[in-house]
């Protein structure tokens, strides 16, 4: 599955289509330009790969939001030999923007929680575009406490524009549900690993990111505010979002340099991620290595390290 829809790809795609024309014409004329065409095609691939290495922060925002990226359920299918999705907050509802459950991952029982977007409009409506409501966080909290009870490590997959900004979500205490997640994760007595798999939108994403290790895929972002909102508040001009995407230092590499995240996993260019054996292996190894490492720690040590991890974030003058 190639992604063929980003503006920066257009000149390359245009060239690609011209080459197609050329192929067809050469067939009609019964001549053979295949050697030349192959050569150009190779060069084109190379150029696009290179272009993917020079993505602007804004282009990375667009890639992070791509609905063709693998979502939480795709990662679950990839990682788990068996998985049982569990539902409900026991209080109000079952939020499909947040999925979670328990499964076996290479002989290891794990609890997995993550945001879930849809791939088309109908799916997106039922998943509320990956924007959890309070019941989503409360379901997640319930599953976390169970992971703790049974000593299961927790994986979270983050990909959300943010928490749902609706009236009902406010009525039912969106802020309260998120803060309990932040506090609950900070003292949860099992290892927690978070992977940002797309868009890490503000508090709604952070609620799954209070972890012992945070991993980002190379074309994902994590931000205090969407660049559009930032531009509209500070510049009163939503069109300057691309500019803000740079200022906010929200892409994976910038956050790795700021030591907010522990690792960036390189994404293959122009390929459905889970079709790339290299990517899949790297992801699996990263998760398993971290789980091995964290699992060997005493719980008190683990909690101490998790506390100081977040405690030390911030730059100020004393």
């Amino acid at each position, binding site marked *: 599955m190639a992604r063929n829809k980003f503006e920066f790809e257009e000149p390359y795609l245009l060239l690609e289509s011209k080459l197609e024309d050329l192929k067809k014409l050469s067939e009609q004329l019964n001549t053979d330009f295949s050697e030349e065409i192959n050569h150009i095609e190779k060069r084109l691939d190379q150029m696009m790969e290179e272009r993917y290495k020079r993505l602007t922060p804004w282009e990375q925002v667009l890639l992070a939001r791509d609905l063709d990226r693998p979502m939480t359920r795709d990662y679950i299918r990839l990682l788990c030999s*068996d998985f049982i999705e569990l539902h*409900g907050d026991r209080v109000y509802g079952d939020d499909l923007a947040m999925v979670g459950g328990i499964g076996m991952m290479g002989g*290891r029982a794990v609890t997995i929680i993550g945001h879930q977007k849809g791939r088309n409009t109908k799916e997106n409506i039922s998943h509320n575009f990956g924007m959890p409501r309070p019941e989503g966080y409360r379901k997640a909290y319930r599953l976390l406490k*169970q992971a703790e009870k049974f000593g299961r490590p927790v994986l979270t997959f983050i990909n959300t524009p943010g928490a749902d900004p609706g009236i009902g979500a406010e009525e039912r205490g969106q802020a309260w549900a998120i803060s309990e997640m932040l506090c609950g994760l900070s003292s949860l007595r099992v290892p927690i690993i978070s992977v940002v798999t797309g868009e890490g939108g503000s508090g709604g994403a952070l609620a799954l990111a209070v972890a012992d290790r945070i991993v980002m895929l190379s074309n994902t972002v994590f931000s205090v505010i969407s660049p559009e909102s930032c531009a509209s508040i500070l510049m009163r001009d939503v069109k300057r979002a691309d500019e803000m995407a740079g200022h906010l230092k929200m892409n994976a590499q910038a956050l790795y340099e700021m030591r907010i995240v522990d690792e960036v996993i390189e994404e293959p260019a122009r390929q459905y991620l889970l079709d790339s054996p290299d990517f899949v292996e790297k992801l699996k190894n990263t998760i398993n290595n971290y789980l091995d490492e964290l699992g060997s720690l005493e719980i008190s040590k683990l909690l101490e390290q998790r506390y100081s991890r977040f405690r030390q974030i911030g730059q100020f003058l004393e």
Partner: protein
Amino acid sequence: MFKKSYIDISGAKKKQAKFENEVTFSCPKCLTRITATEKMQNNDFCPKCSYYYVTSAWDRIHDVCDENSFEEWNAHIKSLNPLNFPNYEKKMIKAREETGLTEAIVTGRGSIGGYDVVLGAMDSRFMMGSMGSAVGEKISRAMEKAIQYSLPCIMFSSSGGARMQEGMLSLMQMAKTSASVGRLREAGLLYISILTHPTTGGVTASFASLADVIIAESGALVGFTGPRVIEQTTGHVLPPGFQRSEYLLKHGMVDLVQPRAEMRSLLIRLLNIHQGENYGEK
């Protein structure tokens, strides 16, 4: 966490094979005939008129347990008539004769896909599966045994609630069984509750809704107040599907809705995931 003898992930298949000798049933309400397989696949509801063929406690136990693995406990415990409530003894004798059971629940120990478990199954044919002193006692004893042997505990509910003929002694079984679940929780043991048709009142509001994993059998009616009482008290017409399993799922009250035919394989998978501790307290 608990003893694992062998794993049989293909557990569900065993049960399907069992139904190849195709007994057929005739619906007492609309006379539609169905095979045993069809009946089970439709979770014991008549596909035409939704009549419910009651599933007995022993049916449920045989559905999920490995063959010949179940050993009943406390079969001898019987209710008395402590309040001298009129006609109570008569009703109990009738229920015993009709069901061959001594009480509205069967408890014991068995294995499911090789995993040893403590198991209880209520039987709604016995005075509507109501919970009196004997039912409460058998549940609490089963949970205490689960703690003693460090085994997971599985309860199939099916009940109209507390048994009114024993008055407050029945109501207090809600507190008693809930306190026993509290002990299961402290012991860190897995507790799975399966809500089957119908479960209401004091059973839903005690041990049945306190589990780690709550499964509702497809189509089951589960709630606190029964639908007729709600209609009479509030004067409202109940929405379609009200208090049915799928409604409970939507409202966040159960983890899963599962057809009866696939219950065994789901339990095996759950037991498999919970079989070991990866990161217990160190």
